[in-house]
């Protein structure tokens, strides 16, 4: 047997870890995180930097953009810029509350279901399936019969989103039960709850973060739908989604009155969705 060493002379230098290293992309996550954070802060605090009162009538209806009125006026002659700056707060707060509630319930339930793997867990998963059969928006619309708009958004997001989170987290937890790091912790006597919080949850932080992003997008969509249908804040109050409906007819006169709130909603939902997607791809989930 001959031994040939690559016949190119010296042994080629090779990165031995290559096959094991999963290339992480923290930069995309950081950039998108910063963008989403900025958008959220602007949506929540935009009112403070608005020059005009958001409900005062300052110009003729559908005035085109002009000095001092950068985005023109809306159907009733109110400052569009001021309304866009002020019109995201309630919607964003509602969506954040809804998403955090749905995610927290889903994560807690998922950890429990995935860890205990009992009959109760299967029943919970079955009940979750049942809720999935009803469309989210329909649930929220039903809720709005009896509840105020924001509460209906929370109810719809929780009813429609929690089962999805629960399922994802339960699957991940069940898989992690036999991971080396979990068994090592168990065999040195750590309790189940501590293992779940110290080992399983941090190991799936990317998953939970990505999922929270999805719930937030869902909640924003739900809030936008309800507000567009007129179940949001009462009329003079500014709201991005309500602005879409109020100003759609005036597109030919002052397009900015429709496009600005639409862009605000799109950037809010889009940046969160992109962040969620990049978190999921980083951890090889999608």
């Amino acid at each position: 047997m001959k031994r040939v060493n690559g016949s190119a002379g010296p042994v080629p230098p090779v990165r031995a870890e290559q096959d094991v290293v999963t290339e992480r992309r923290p930069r995309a996550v950081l950039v998108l995180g910063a963008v989403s954070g900025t958008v959220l802060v602007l949506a929540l605090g935009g009112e403070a930097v608005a020059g005009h009162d958001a409900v005062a009538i300052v110009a003729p209806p559908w005035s085109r953009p002009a000095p001092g009125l950068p985005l023109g006026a809306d159907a009733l002659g109110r400052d569009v810029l001021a309304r866009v700056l002020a019109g995201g707060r309630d919607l964003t707060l509602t969506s954040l509350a809804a998403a955090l509630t749905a995610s927290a319930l889903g994560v807690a339930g998922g950890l429990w279901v995935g860890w205990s793997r009992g009959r109760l867990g299967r029943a919970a998963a079955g009940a979750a399936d049942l809720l999935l059969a009803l469309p989210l928006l329909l649930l929220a619309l039903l809720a709005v019969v009896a509840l105020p708009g924001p509460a209906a958004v929370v109810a719809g997001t929780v009813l429609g989103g929690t089962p999805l989170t629960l399922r994802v987290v339960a699957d991940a937890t069940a898989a992690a039960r036999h991971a080396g790091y979990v068994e090592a912790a168990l065999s040195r006597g750590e309790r189940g709850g501590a293992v779940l919080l110290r080992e399983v949850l941090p190991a799936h932080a990317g998953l939970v973060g990505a999922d929270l992003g999805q719930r937030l997008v869902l909640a924003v969509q739900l809030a936008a739908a309800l507000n567009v249908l007129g179940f949001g804040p009462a009329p003079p109050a500014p709201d991005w989604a309500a602005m879409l409906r109020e100003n759609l007819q005036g597109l030919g006169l002052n397009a900015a009155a429709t496009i600005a709130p639409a862009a605000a909603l799109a950037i809010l939902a889009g940046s969160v969705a992109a962040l969620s997607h990049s978190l999921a791809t980083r951890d090889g989930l999608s």
Partner: protein
Amino acid sequence: MNRHGLTVRGLTVTGRTGTVIVDRLDLRIAPGEVLALVGPSGAGKTTVLRAVLGALPSGLRQASGRIEWHGAPVRAPRRWRRRTVGFLGQDPASALHPLLDARAAVREALPRSGRDGGEEERALAEVGLDPAGLGRRRPHQLSGGQAQRVALARALAADPELLVLDEFTSALDPAALVLVLERVRRRRGDGRSVTLIVSHDMAVVSELADHVVRLGPGEGSHVAPRPPVLPPAGKRRPGGAPVLEAHGLTIAQPPGGAPLLSDVDLTISAGEGVAVLGPSGSGKSTLLRVLAGLHPAGQGQAAAAGRPLPWPVTERGPAALRALALVGQNPLDVLNPARTVGAALARPLRTLRGLPRRTARAEVLRLLATVGLPEDLAHRYPAALSGGQRQRVALARALAGGPAVLLADEITAALDDRTAAQVLDLIDALRHRTGLAVLAATHDPAVAARADRVLRIEAGRLHPHPRSHDDDRRPSLDVL
């Protein structure tokens, strides 16, 4: 047309970030020859294969070099593969389409013109499968060994000019392996067939190959770990007092079901190395998991370092918890991806030994030195570690509590021979220097060869396994 066989000139493959994975590799396989690529895991063997086949996974790029077939560059790699190449991957059984039956699977590999002449029956019969009985079965209706043979029949059916076999020795069952070896031997010297194999089994390689190309770092390069810094010798001596005792253990899988193992009696002394052999599914791992407290014992008692070992594990006292440590087999999930190496090692130091934070930090560095890893690894996440490094960290984590017995569950199964040997050397050294006892579940003769005593599980019982001291040392270890 010149029949030069396969020529690779100056092949360089780079990763996404520009890291060089294969650097200016030249290969030449003439018709009738067999060439073997060897090297440690992660050296780029499979990458070379994919590059030769013109099918690099996304993220990898062929930066330079040429692949030539019979003297001409390969222009349409997919068509060339379809016409010329037979391929058998690392896990042949999983390479079968779950909805296609055996005949349909083999038929896929045949050229259109040869599909009516009963070629697929012949190909199946050639690998020892009865086409009448098994031809209509889908993969889930076949045994694992039969499925491997179907994949083998498919790779060989068209009598490919270029046969590529990727790590086939680790996955194939012995009978199928014999078939492959025989077939490759027949191809050798026939003046037509070109064969490219990747393997880490040096016994197979030395027997089959005309050329051996070694990839990866040579001796003394940056991958070689620093020598372990072991604790001073003489604290505990081999052959001392028993550190692990089990009497009449009965183990059911699942708990409460039919017993998998009955009446297990086991005594291990300080510094002793004991290997447990047995077919997969016989309960080797479960025995270790029972001792570690992860799985309940149906009956019987156990004690470690003189302390009783109750079940569940949360009932165990601190001394009993310290006495045993389990290391698993899968380097992919052995460490928490969200924790740095330092944090992973500090946790048992604090829970098991009650060290304050500052002392634990210093102790982490000492543990890393013990397993021969550099100190700066403490700040890294597992994703940045190789498989061998992860297993060493797992070993360090197991040693953190100062165990009397190490329960090693197939710890080298996922490592290549060289890395495995280094890990085993380290464990041997610890055994001799500190009196650590080791109970290893394994199917690897190389692990068993290092043990003082070998036990075998047969028919649900644990038996002593007679062995002489020099019979089953694997030649591959010495060659590597």
